[in-house]
């Protein structure tokens, strides 16, 4: 399931709903991204997440479908917020549930790695010097590349 929203989400309720009633599930792996109050060496106050409505949902749906194809999963979830967020706020949740823990771990890791380099979101951080667009990190590209992306995408 894919959700793109401004509102916060209830982590416990979302994870519970993902496995509820499915007793074939042996493991649930999840990752939550949170707003840090430090960026590089600078203190930040808050940030604003811009995104590309329409393409965001398409990309997240594609990423989820790819995970479901690669691993034997019982359930997956991606929630990504946009708009203004304060330090400590939840930004993103990805989760994968499977009969087996390795599949749950790998799929969850894959979901966040791909989301980081494919989903069209951009962070604008409030710093003492004003708004700063966050730079993409080479380490994120490397994290995506290790999943051996089928070629032919010009994303990076």
């Amino acid at each position, binding site marked *: 399931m894919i959700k793109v929203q401004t509102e916060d989400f209830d982590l416990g309720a979302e994870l519970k709903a993902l496995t509820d009633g499915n007793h074939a599930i042996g493991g649930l792996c999840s990752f939550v*991204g949170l707003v840090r109050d430090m960026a590089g060496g600078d203190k930040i106050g808050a940030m604003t*997440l*811009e*995104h*590309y409505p*329409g*393409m965001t949902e*398409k990309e997240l749906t594609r990423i989820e479908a790819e995970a479901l194809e690669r691993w034997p999963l019982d359930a997956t979830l991606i929630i*990504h917020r946009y708009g203004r967020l304060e330090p400590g706020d939840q*930004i*993103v949740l990805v989760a994968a549930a499977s009969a087996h823990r390795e599949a749950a771990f790998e799929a969850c890791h894959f979901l*966040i790695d791909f*989301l*980081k*380099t*494919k*989903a*069209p*979101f*951009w*962070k*604008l951080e409030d710093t003492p010097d004003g708004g700063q*667009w*966050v*730079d*993409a990190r080479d380490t994120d590209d490397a994290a995506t590349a290790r999943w051996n992306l089928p070629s032919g*995408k*010009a*994303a*990076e």
Partner: protein
Amino acid sequence: MSAPLKLLYFAWLREKAGIGEEAVPTPDGVATVGELMDWLVGRGGGYAEAFSDRKVVRVAVNQEYVSLDHPVAAGDEVAFFPPVTGG
């Protein structure tokens, strides 16, 4: 008369271009994304600045990532944005 191109700009590309969304008739001689970028740069000002370093510009046509040699046609939605930083 054919449908215009819908152009979208995000993040600092939007700020530099000075516009978030616009509709333009497909310019003469523009058949690919790269040629569309050349034409936009030719408008000067904010556009030239926005596209000054093409290595950091990502392009999507109809909400799919594409490379610079991808064709553009009347009615397409073409979006320009920096490398993504969500998650």
